[in-house]
């Protein structure tokens, strides 16, 4: 699966963000290269939330940062609105970058421990030299918008706040820049379970109130489904599947997506869960099939083949290309096909299957 292709790209004129064939590689030591992201394509419509799903090491964070040009991708194009970022000079890039903002995983590390909340939130204004009379008022307004009481937190420093409050400050700081796109990199994974929902609701509300488009990067399938309109599943720097988030539970086809879903602890145990229409991809007790290959030397062809129960010689030889399998549903896999009929079924098109059938 883990394949290439641009079938999932849309042609609408009003796309706010377009990423074309983006490659991110980091050199490490003796001429070796980490292939963090290998040829990623994505686009974002106004007001849309794109969820990027994958386990650690799949390149999802590198992708988010490369979109922000921090650091610049090795190759490929990133365009924000009509403007292409990849060719900009440093000075122009500073301005363009501010149109996108990022919420990071560790809210405490994202705040300068020596600053007070009001300075943290106003940092963007200070950077751009804005010092109008309404400065304090807009800081207050933004703090209230993220659910913090300005009178209480005004003079506090990050260590006096809880993790959830710090994440709210980060969101307020991003909003002060009045961005078009908000990139959230695992924004809730370091938070307590009961606080996670507060932040997810806040992000959802903020997106609507501030007219944002959002990229939401996370490893938790349910969280991604909750907040996204569209989900992109990433494996070792390659895109496996793109689909509307509503179909994540029942319509996802890619063996890797199925593996992620079946890995949700408790998912298979819940009595009220409707019977899955697919044959579950069995997750083995043995560790042999579960080792994530090294991103220094990713497998040939389909990158998921070393862990895929359906893998054949074809997968090693040839990289699968994105193809459409349903409305807004795109897939890069040689072996999963959609037969006629309403419910998509997982079918194995291997040689043995044909002989046996």
């Amino acid at each position, binding site marked *: 699966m883990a394949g290439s292709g641009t079938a999932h790209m849309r042609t609408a004129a009003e796309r706010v963000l377009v990423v074309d064939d983006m490659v991110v590689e980091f050199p490490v030591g003796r001429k070796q290269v980490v292939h963090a992201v290998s040829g990623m394509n994505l686009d974002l419509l106004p007001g849309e939330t794109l969820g990027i799903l994958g386990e650690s090491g799949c390149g999802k964070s590198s992708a988010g940062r490369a979109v922000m040009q921090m650091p610049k991708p090795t190759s490929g194009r990133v365009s924000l609105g009509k403007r292409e970022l990849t060719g900009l000079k440093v000075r122009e890039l500073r301005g363009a*970058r501010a149109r996108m903002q990022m919420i990071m995983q560790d809210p405490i590390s994202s705040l300068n421990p020596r600053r007070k909340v009001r300075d943290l939130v106003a940092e963007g204004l200070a950077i751009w030299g804005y010092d109008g009379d309404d400065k304090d008022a807009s800081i207050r307004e933004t703090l209230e918008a993220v659910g913090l009481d300005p009178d209480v937190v005004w003079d506090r420093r990050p260590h006096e706040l809880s993790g959830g409050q710090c994440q709210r400050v980060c969101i307020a*700081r991003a909003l002060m820049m009045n961005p078009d796109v908000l990139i959230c990199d695992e924004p809730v994974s370091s938070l307590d379970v009961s606080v996670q929902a507060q932040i997810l609701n806040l992000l959802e509300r903020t997106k609507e109130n501030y007219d944002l488009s959002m990229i939401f990067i996370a490893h938790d399938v349910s969280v991604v489904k909750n907040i996204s309109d569209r989900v992109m599943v990433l494996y070792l720097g390659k895109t496996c599947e793109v689909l509307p988030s509503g179909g994540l539970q029942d319509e996802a086809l890619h063996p890797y997506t199925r593996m992620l879903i079946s890995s949700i602890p408790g998912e298979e145990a819940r009595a009220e869960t409707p019977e899955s229409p697919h044959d579950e991809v069995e997750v083995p007790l043995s560790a042999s099939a579960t080792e994530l290959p090294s991103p220094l030397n990713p497998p040939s062809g389909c990158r998921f083949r070393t862990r895929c129960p359906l893998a054949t010689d074809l997968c090693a030889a040839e990289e699968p290309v994105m193809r459409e399998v349903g409305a807004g549903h795109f897939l890069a896999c040689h072996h999963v096909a959609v037969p006629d009929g309403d419910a998509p079924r997982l079918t194995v098109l291997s040689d043995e299957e044909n002989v046996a059938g």
Partner: protein
Amino acid sequence: MPSKKALRAASVNRTRLLTVGAVLTVVGLALAIFGWSTPSLLLGGKAVLFLAGVALLFQGVNRLLQGVLGRRVDLTLWLCVGWLVAIVLAAILAPYLPLGEQNDVAKTLLEPSYTTPALLTEHPLGTNNQGLDLLARSIYGARTSLMISLLAVAVGTVVGGTIGVIAGYFRKGVDSVVGIFTNALLAVPPLILLIALSTFLDPSIRNMSLALALLTIPSMIRLARANTITFAQREFVMAARLMGATRMRVMARELVPNVILPVFSMAVVMISALIVAEASLSFLGLGIQQPDPTWGNMIAEGEGGIMEDHPHIVLVPGAFLFLTVFAFNLLGEKAQARWDTRSAKL
């Protein structure tokens, strides 16, 4: 809300603190005075009694303070601060203090030499072979010592800190060049470098400060660089860049305020290291020259059999040196514990 039982326990505890504290204080004081003032005892016995007395006194006062104030007080810290304030004030005000003669032998022709310390006499800490007053010499020694080391640390911190932050933030080429430079400076052990420098520099206060500053620069660069690297990896630096901050701004506004605390803590510890270095050099005869006093060359006066007969020639400046170094070490230690979470890595 504490229960009645807890309250009663606290009050019992407090009474005990006060009683034990008072007893310890009295016994300690008595031992210390006895040890100090009894002439018939051997030197070793005196010292042991005196030190034991001081230790008890310390414990006693500590308990008394805790009992009276109701919370723990870091007595050692406050004693150190007190000593440093006293020595710095004395050093600054030395010319205006009613002290004996400190370096002009011509004025002390009639003074007795090698008088032993006796608190209530004209020479409370005794005199040396030329009748110069040891208290005066110790305080003028402090003047020289502190001036040299503070100047050196200030220069070293500013220069080293700046280079370190720049190297740590830009990495790559700048970092390599700075790295080779620091490694070369660090390749010669500090005291050896000082000795080498002393062969061609006149031992003036300015030259000594510059030489010592040169010693502090590489360690400061390393510390500032290491801290810059750790902070630069924190996400708030990336957040600032994402909002469009320039590299200059990131360094000045995001990194420096964070790096300055560990660097400052290190500087305090370094003051004591430099005091020791200056004293060592003067002890070896390569630093400030007689008759101008520093603690190092005063201690050197005890060499060659003099110390055996007149131990106070070594002990008096030695005590000044020890207390000052101890106080700076302790302050630096506290500062590092508070501000430098990664000092252990260096």
